């Protein structure tokens, strides 16, 4: 039996709360950058196969902008901040003040990429620092890396650690949206994909027995 099947509903609730606190802080940061109201859904914690994971982000072939970073320190995992291209374009426009910017095709300009990377940096930084405060564990982000490509090609990187022990992943997924601006329901996703050892470390840091 894989470690993932041992997770009980109470522990899932804790993971949901982690997503809630982390993404809540990130949403506040985003709201401050854009000076706009940002809505956040209650996080989803799901146990999914790798293929289902791709579907959650729009399908393996769907093209997205994704900022990927590793969570390091006492507890490790992978984190993705995933944006559909129209949303990425919108964020770049707001951040740079250049309303004519178009993210239509490669090669993408370097400053646009750097701008998105910085977005990812700020948001995932605030996500992880709140997680670190909450658990009193030393958790910090690696330097983020950006890719605009197919979901399947990018997310599989976050599954590498997990794939050595399991064929399923626990995903803590939070959706950020800006009040009905986009018809597209996929706005911004935070995916936290904990490494296998993450769970015992987090649960014991929070005083929850892993085998309850």
């Amino acid at each position, binding site marked *: 039996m*894989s470690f993932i099947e041992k997770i009980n509903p109470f522990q899932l609730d804790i993971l949901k709360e982690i997503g809630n606190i982390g993404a809540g802080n990130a949403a506040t940061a985003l709201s401050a950058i854009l000076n706009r109201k940002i809505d956040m859904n209650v996080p989803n914690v799901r146990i999914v*196969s*790798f*293929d289902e994971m*791709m579907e959650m982000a729009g*399908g*393996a*072939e769907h*093209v997205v902008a994704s900022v*990927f970073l590793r969570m390091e320190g006492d507890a490790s995992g992978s984190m993705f901040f995933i944006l559909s291209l129209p949303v990425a374009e919108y964020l770049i426009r707001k951040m740079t003040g250049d309303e004519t910017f178009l993210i239509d*095709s*490669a*090669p993408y300009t370097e400053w646009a990429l750097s701008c998105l990377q910085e977005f990812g940096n700020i948001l995932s930084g605030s996500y992880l620092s709140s997680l670190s405060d909450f658990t009193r564990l030393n958790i910090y982000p*690696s*330097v983020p*890396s*950006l*890719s*605009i*490509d*197919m*979901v*399947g*090609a*990018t997310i*599989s*990187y976050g*599954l*590498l*650690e997990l*794939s*050595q*022990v*399991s*064929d399923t992943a626990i995903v803590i997924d939070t959706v950020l949206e800006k009040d009905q601006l986009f018809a597209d329901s996929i706005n911004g996703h935070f995916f936290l994909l904990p490494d*296998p050892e993450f769970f015992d470390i987090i649960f014991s840091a929070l005083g929850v027995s892993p085998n309850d």
Partner: protein
Amino acid sequence: MTELLKVQVVKVGIADMNIIKPPYTIRTSGLGSCVGVVIYDEKKEIAGLAHIMLPDSSLAKSGQINVAKFADTAIKELVQILVKEGARMPFLKAKLAGGAQMFQFASEGDLMRIGPRNVDAVRKELSDLRIRVVAEDVGGNSGRTIEFNLNDCLLNIRTVTKGTKNI
């Protein structure tokens, strides 16, 4: 026309494999660091595709493994299935695509440069089984979607930034 519409696509997921016979084509989407290997017998009109995630089953840390996930186990298993379904071992050929480096990291752990390692492992496994690689499109930093067609035995490769091509 109705004949054409009947052409069906068999989809292979991540860490998965399958085989086809006409009129089917076989496809896998969103290869990043993963490698897609097509092994086929042209005359017998049979082909198999594996979407490989990791180079070596010794990386597995749990007892029960998914053989389609690792280069060494996936290729052996795929060849076995193909031969059982009528392919002839000495006539098998292979085409591969994938093994890209999607993200650039300053601190490069082994897992972060998994793409090239996957490609090396696949090549080695194929050469151990004496299966010739007739075409490949590997490395780079783009995701790929591939589809193999038994009519002309061409592998169609689609990328986001570099368009499509057949190998």
